């Protein structure tokens, strides 16, 4: 057991190192950081809560978009490309099970995504804090109510985004395990992300009484079960600006459902990878 953990953690470490040494990661990180910082320039006449909300939303959007791209491309790069360019061949000839390899790859990628999410969240915290200080001064001058934001809400949001990217990475890993080309991996992975973003539509449609056919209904039912709801992680503005509007139980249910999908995708990926020809 110890040896297994040891090997898995070495795979993860090298995967992390590989990702960090790539320009693509640095590029996306700088781009997203620029987006977060530039949100400060968005100023409104109504300098209250709605301005903070806009600043927050803009940064969340950047994190969400570039995070998805990063999770998709990094996973395909660190896992699929490794099989395709045959570096995996040498590693899999070592006393190492396929599941250890896959898990190590996932953990390394997820750690990189963690660096991405948490450094951006930290940056965003600084921006929100400094803008809030300015707004408090202005509010005192005009006699309005000063806006505020929740630091713990921001932290929970970062955890949720990290989990969301973990689900995306596990999904792409599953695609990689059966894919034959890099392009296929990226395209199907991207489609899976979009499907996850839109999954709530299927859920809504199911809830509404309608005269849709049984086939449509069962299709909707299946997609609402199989596809993870990625939209449910995007509750950042509520968590940060209006933390009382959301219950701890609701956040936990999102976390549990995310973990469920993450583990399920990893298990399927490992099953598919086990008999793959390297």
């Amino acid at each position, binding site marked *: 057991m110890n040896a297994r953990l*040891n090997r898995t953690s070495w795979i993860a470490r090298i995967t992390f190192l590989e990702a960090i040494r790539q320009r693509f990661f640095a590029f996306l990180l700088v781009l997203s950081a620029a987006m977060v910082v530039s949100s400060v320039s968005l100023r409104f006449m109504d300098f209250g809560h709605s301005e903070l909300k806009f600043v927050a939303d803009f940064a969340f959007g950047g994190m969400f978009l570039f995070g998805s791209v990063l999770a998709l491309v990094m996973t395909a790069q660190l896992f699929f490309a490794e099989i395709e360019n045959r570096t995996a061949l040498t590693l*899999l000839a070592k006393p190492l099970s396929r599941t250890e390899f896959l898990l190590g790859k996932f953990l390394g990628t997820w750690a990189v995504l963690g660096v991405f999410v948490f450094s951006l969240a930290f940056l965003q915290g600084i921006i929100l804090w400094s803008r809030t200080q300015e707004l408090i001064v202005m509010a005192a001058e005009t006699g309005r109510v000063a806006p505020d934001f929740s630091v713990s809400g921001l932290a929970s949001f970062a955890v949720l985004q990290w989990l969301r990217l973990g689900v995306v990475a596990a999904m792409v890993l599953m695609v990689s395990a059966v894919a034959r080309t890099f392009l296929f991996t990226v395209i199907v992975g991207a489609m899976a992300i979009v499907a996850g973003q839109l999954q709530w539509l299927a859920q809504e449609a199911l809830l509404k009484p309608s005269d849709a056919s049984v086939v449509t209904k069962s299709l909707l039912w299946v997609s609402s079960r199989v596809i993870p709801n990625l939209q449910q992680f995007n509750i950042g503005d509520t968590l940060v600006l209006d933390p009382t509007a959301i219950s701890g139980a609701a956040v936990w249910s999102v976390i549990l459902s995310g973990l469920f999908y993450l583990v399920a995708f990893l298990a399927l990926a490992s099953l598919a990878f086990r008999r793959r020809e390297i």
Partner: protein
Amino acid sequence: MSTSSAISVQGLTKDFRVGLRGIKLRAVDNLSLEIPRGQVFGLLGPNGCGKSTTLKIVLGLIPATSGAISILGFPSATTEARQRTGFLPEAPYFHKFLTGRELVQYCARLSGVPSAQVHDAVEASLELAAMTEAASRPIGTYSKGMLQRIGLAQAIVHDPELVILDEPTAGVDPVGSAAIGRMINAMRAKGKTIVLCSHLLGQVEQVCDRVAIMDRGRLVLEGRVDEVLAQRDRHVITVAYLTPQARQAAEAALAAHGATVTSITHPRRSLEDLFRELVTGSRDA
């Protein structure tokens, strides 16, 4: 399956499905092979005859269509079997962002070398592969021959009992090839089993104890090198100062006993021998 064999292959068949219609391509056809321990075994054959495929199946990298394989008495594709095996794939490719030393360290960790021994094991195998000098450069900057040699270092870092080398000399210069030949001999002297795929027949003849020749996925010959190459019904007599008269007399004397002289030529040295004779004393000899 015999436990005394390093590798035992029985009735191995591998079909690949190629193209959209999944046409069957038989890469290995009912191959049975026993590779004894402690010897150097050469696996030969033309391009595409299924050597690399066989080795990959032995290591559990691709599943066999049918047949049974064991490595050192363990079923292949188990971690126990791979723990005792080192593998250099053909045309190896490694993480180019790592340095040579980092790669070998990484492989040592994955192969379960205890932390306290990693440093020594890594330096020893880099030394053996003559890669100490370039070890702190990123692998992305290596030449083809250097890739082969760093591949060799990563294959032997955990001191495996069985070393499988798929074309270790491809792209390596003559001096490097000779060094690899010496490495193989040194490993045999330590009691290791080595399986070698190579198109350098001269070198195979020199270093291998046994050879197997494959053609179109089938085994066509297997045996000890001196046995398969010896022509038991022919003899070579080397004579100095052979005058035409002496030759006639000798032929007549042999004919009296029913023996015929089939050829008389000058013995030749191998180019390899000549080369070595001329360049001995060079740094690497």
